[in-house]
């Protein structure tokens, strides 16, 4: 299978590598920045393309990976599906449910496969937690608290700080947790949220969310783009017969570089190396689905649900009242 990637910044480059690790071949690298496209193409021995819609129409492309800013996802999915290509789309699937529905309809019409990059489902620690829950090791789970985030994301184009594009920490970051919680505990009943959009201009966002699942479980989700540095994930899962907790600050490697005189203190960088990247695992899952050897762990409907939860959280933060899911 040949891959064409659209969007050749950090995530695009990473997905190219992971897709190749999973057996795909990168043949075309598209980016509205020619320079970005050329750099990526050189790295993977592919062709640089400036017109990303044209990339979708190339005969040598079987699969398109969409790794662009959120609001552009759905138009590229439509272009790829229209050209009969399978699509991998970075999360979140889209910026609005309307554009997502149009894209899903295009995918359906074309009979192609769409995979959404909810990679947390493949993180080893989250897999281990889910396995314990599913095995009933801690009994019925009544409460979960997740915490995710750190520094305000950079991004070459600065689009994360444009609320209308990124949707802030809620749509961009804790959409991961919303997806994982629904994956483990089923559909939500109701969501309530608060956020700091009012100081977004200061490059600070902080989201406080409570989601009540249909099964009764209460999930509290905290997302931060408010910290001056770092990135941290914490999970607290409480059951009738025990608990499971995770904290990414407890990592096996902790490095600190000795910088030159006068350059001030360096930052401690924790690392938790794994044998296989969860991003590669998600590409193997997609590749297996494309080959017809397995069912995908993330469906297009899952991708739509994740955005639906995040948008409901944003709506709740706006109105000050919960949003019910019917």
């Amino acid at each position: 299978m040949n891959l064409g990637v659209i969007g050749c910044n950090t995530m695009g480059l990473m997905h190219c590598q992971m897709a190749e690790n999973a057996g795909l071949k990168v043949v075309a690298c598209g980016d509205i920045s020619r320079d970005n496209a050329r750099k990526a193409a050189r790295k993977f021995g592919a062709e640089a393309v400036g017109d990303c819609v044209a990339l979708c129409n190339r005969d040598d492309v079987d699969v398109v990976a969409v790794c662009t800013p959120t609001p552009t996802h759905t138009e590229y999915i439509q272009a790829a599906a229209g050209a009969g290509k399978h699509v991998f789309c970075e999360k979140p699937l889209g910026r609005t449910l309307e554009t997502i529905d149009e894209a899903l309809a295009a995918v359906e019409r074309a009979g192609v496969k769409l995979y959404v990059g909810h990679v947390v489902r493949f993180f080893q620690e989250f897999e281990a937690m889910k396995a314990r829950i599913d095995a009933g090791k801690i009994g019925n789970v009544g409460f979960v608290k997740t915490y995710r985030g750190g520094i305000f994301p950079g991004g070459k184009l600065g689009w994360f700080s444009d609320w209308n594009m990124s949707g802030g920490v809620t749509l961009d970051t804790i959409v991961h947790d919303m997806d994982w919680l629904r994956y483990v505990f089923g559909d939500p009943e109701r969501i309530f949220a608060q956020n700091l959009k009012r100081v977004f201009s200061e490059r600070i966002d902080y989201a406080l969310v409570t989601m009540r699942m249909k099964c009764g479980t209460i999930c509290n989700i905290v997302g931060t783009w408010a910290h001056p540095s770092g990135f941290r994930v914490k999970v607290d899962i409480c059951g009738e017969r025990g608990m499971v907790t995770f904290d990414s600050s407890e990592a096996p490697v902790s490095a600190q570089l000795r910088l030159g005189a006068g350059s001030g203190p360096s930052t401690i960088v924790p690392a938790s190396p794994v044998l296989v990247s969860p991003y590669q695992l998600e590409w193997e899952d997609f590749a297996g689905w494309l080959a017809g050897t397995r069912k995908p762990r993330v469906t297009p409907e899952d991708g739509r649900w994740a955005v639906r939860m995040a948008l409901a959280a944003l709506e709740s933060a706006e109105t000050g009242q919960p949003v019910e899911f019917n």
Partner: protein
Amino acid sequence: MAKIGVMSFAHMHALSYAACLNELPEAELRAVWDDDAARGQEQAAAFGTTFVADLDAFLALDLDGVIIASENVKHREMVERAAAAGKWILCEKPLAPTVEDCRAMVAACQTAGVGLGTAFPCRYIPSVMAVKDELDKGVYGEIYAASCTNNGQFPGGWFARQALSGGGATMDHTVHVADLLRWMLNREFTRVYCENGRLLRPGIDVDDVGSLHMEMEGGVIVSHIASWNRAASFPTWGDVTLELIGEKGVVSVDAFNQKLHVYDDAGMRAAWDYWGGNPDLGLVRGFVAAVDARREPDITGVDGMKAVEVTVAAYASAKSHHMVAIG
């Protein structure tokens, strides 16, 4: 020397308060009364003081003040009796299950001309005091948001019986943090949303998990978890944590994270042994000083009532699934 009596050992915190009274040179644990005579006798003996079975006789003693640590629903009557007898009062939190009770208690103490304090020892945790000091100095600038927890192991007993507690974890474990935020940020709460339920202990008749979202004056947003969600095998009783997001930085407090990791083969269990300063000592010392000076304690009955207003509104929200006004 302030002569202090303890009324009821129903709440386990009474054990610590009694120990503090014995430790403080400026205080004397003069007598114990308890509506459970066996429990009262046992604790009076343990702390080397006298047990008095009759409440009138106890209140007729030459006591300057009393510490009340009964079941929540009994606070009001005991406070009213002690106030009428002219005693200074430190009452266990929550001050009472209802705002109406709190109001009556505050009024009774005003009428009697005695001081009423609420037992919020968290204000005396060294890490909390240090951060409060920094906040006052403006180190973090304006505070925009807070994410907090007061998790605990299941306390069992009367705590889990609505008729004696008046509410579950949402009531038991919201008031400490509500009080801390009012004190540290110097603002009142305005609105609350709450999801809660009996999710971990099927046999009880109160909630054991509450997830609250509050707003404070000036638009500060707050998430708080009030729960009895810690496993029985958890290495400690629970936690008090706050993460504050400010204009100039963020600060996180994990108030009891001064701990030894203890691995004891005798019990075949790992445990966290808190070695930090005892907050109850600060609380009791403050109360004794107020008794001595015949002034209002630093943490007042009104502070206790303000925290109860949050929990009462939280229960209303949990029922209606709407964000509701506080107070």
